[in-house]
């Protein structure tokens, strides 16, 4: 695994262009689906939403459905692409691991001043659990939505039992999707998580933050199986400084074999700046992310 670091700018690439595209395709189409889905309920005329400038369409169920369909195409293509692309490349960075539930509870406790955060991999344990939960919600919404669409286009007299369950599961998981979305936004509002927000917009996060909170990621100890396509992210900026290749073979501040393969310093094969993999930077304001 390679991790692109820009020491001068104190940045490390957390997400490649492909991941950012997947995330925002799902997020933006998901928001449109949420809104247009709401307008499939007879609420826009009743609650005068149609009077809001630009929302006159919301009271007409047919345009709302077309908008819902357009967003669905983006959402479904992105979801299936994600599943097959990362599935075939065996990317496991976001797959929950054993002990994630217990670790998540411990991390949540630290938000309330109880205990210390353990060193993290690229993703927090609660991020991995949330990913699984969101994936399950999206899967049900997509499958039931496909049944409903098939019924609309080809088979209005589809089995009532199938239509009934598809409709109600679609509605219930739509509510769960809203709750999960609210939880997702709530998580990034938490102060310790805020440095990650930059990453989902630019692809990069602060290097000192990553060293302090995600040392396992930098060590590559639990890195995803496939490399991230980092080349497409601001290559010129990265090229200006050294690119530190981190892998699982060698370690040591001075290039010597490590005494412990799992230590924070593990995995730095070529090192021009030895502090790159030292774990927490002594100069880092330790409380800044708490």
């Amino acid at each position: 695994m390679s991790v692109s670091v820009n020491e001068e700018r104190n940045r490390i690439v957390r997400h490649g262009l492909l991941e950012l595209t997947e995330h925002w395709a799902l997020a933006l189409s998901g928001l449109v689906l949420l809104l247009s889905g709401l307008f499939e309920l007879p609420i826009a005329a009743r609650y005068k939403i149609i009077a809001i400038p630009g929302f006159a369409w919301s009271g007409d169920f047919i345009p709302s459905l077309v908008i819902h369909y357009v967003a669905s195409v983006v959402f479904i293509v992105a979801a299936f692409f994600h599943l097959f692309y990362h599935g075939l490349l065996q990317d496991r960075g976001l797959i929950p691991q054993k002990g994630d539930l217990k670790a998540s509870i411990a991390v949540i406790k630290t938000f309330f001043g109880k205990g210390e955060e353990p060193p993290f991999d690229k993703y927090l344990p609660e991020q991995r659990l949330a990913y699984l939960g969101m994936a399950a919600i999206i899967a049900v919404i997509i499958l039931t939505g496909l049944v409903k669409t098939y019924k609309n286009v080809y088979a209005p007299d589809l089995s009532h039992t199938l239509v009934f369950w598809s409709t109600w599961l679609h509605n219930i998981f739509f509510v769960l999707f809203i709750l999960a979305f609210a939880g997702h936004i709530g998580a990034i509002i938490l102060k310790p998580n805020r440095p990650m927000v930059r990453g989902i917009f630019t692809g990069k996060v602060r290097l000192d933050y990553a060293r302090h909170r995600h040392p396992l990621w930098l060590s590559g100890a639990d890195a995803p199986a496939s490399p991230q396509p980092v080349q497409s992210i601001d290559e010129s900026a990265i090229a200006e400084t050294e690119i530190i290749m981190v892998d699982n073979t060698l370690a040591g501040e001075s290039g010597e074999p490590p005494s412990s393969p799992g230590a924070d310093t593990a995995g730095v094969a070529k090192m021009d700046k030895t502090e790159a993999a030292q774990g927490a930077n002594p100069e880092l304001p330790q409380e800044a992310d708490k």
Partner: protein
Amino acid sequence: MKTKTDMNRRRFLKSVTAAALIGTAGALNVPRTAEAGEGKLATLIDLTRCNGCVDRAAPACVSVCKKIKTGRLPEPVDPIPLPFPTRKIEDWSKKKEVGNRLTPYNLIFVQKAEMDIGGDKKTLFIPRRCMHCDNPACATLCPFAANHKFENGAVVIDQELCFGGAKCKTLCPWEIPQRQSGIGVYLKVLPTFMGNGVMVKCDLCSDLLKEGKTPVCIEACPQKAMTIGPRKEIFAKAEELTKKIGGYLYGKTENGGTSTLYVSPVPFDRLDNVIRKGPGEPGLGAVKRQMAGTDTMGKAVLAAPAIGIAAGVAGAFAFVSKRKDRIRKES
């Protein structure tokens, strides 16, 4: 289907006479009863035979439907909760006797069309109720699956599930479903903020169809103006009747096709011009299918999984190939 033609007295009389003869023969050939309660059904309404039961206090189809169906609706709560923020309710419970339009307590009524044909005044009577469309937006877009089109062709609202949001009425080109506020499941949820009663319309007497019986309006018609039977047979009979009387067909293509075919000796656009229209009194004009504009994108949605899978597999393959090339070059 013919939409416009010249109409004169001779032609009208010819049509009516022919229809009377053919209708009688047709009534013998086509089962009026839905003996085959299963399979796709359709109804034929022969306007050359309907006389509006002018000799009765109310048309037989109207009075029998009212008798059978009206008693099935529960009494609304008192007072009926006022919905926020419109504060508008629809309460027909104190006007159950109304029979000259569609209401939650009157699921069929007879429209009167008076015309001047070749100098003679002629009157046609048109029984009106749900058309039971082939691809009904009212049912497919119901957000709670409370309205559904069944395999036999009947479009039925489940009154236990309906919240009375009236989306079905908005989507129906004839605005057939009618709302009764103060009844239904919405009262148990958030009656002020969500829902406003129950939508009610003709269900083609689905319970009777399941038993192999005939809808009560068809059974009660003294003129045998209405016929129900296997869809193919009814459609063939309607086409044959239309052709033989030089008449006109309504319901075959309207809203993308329906399970109710009207045969008339007079063009329907002309009938549409003379009948009274308004709330609960639908017109007879040409109607495009409500859902037609959504089909293309709907098909794109159904293709989206295949597109996503193809892109994912191609992307992964390209990535692996690129990595192999890089390793080969490096080595």
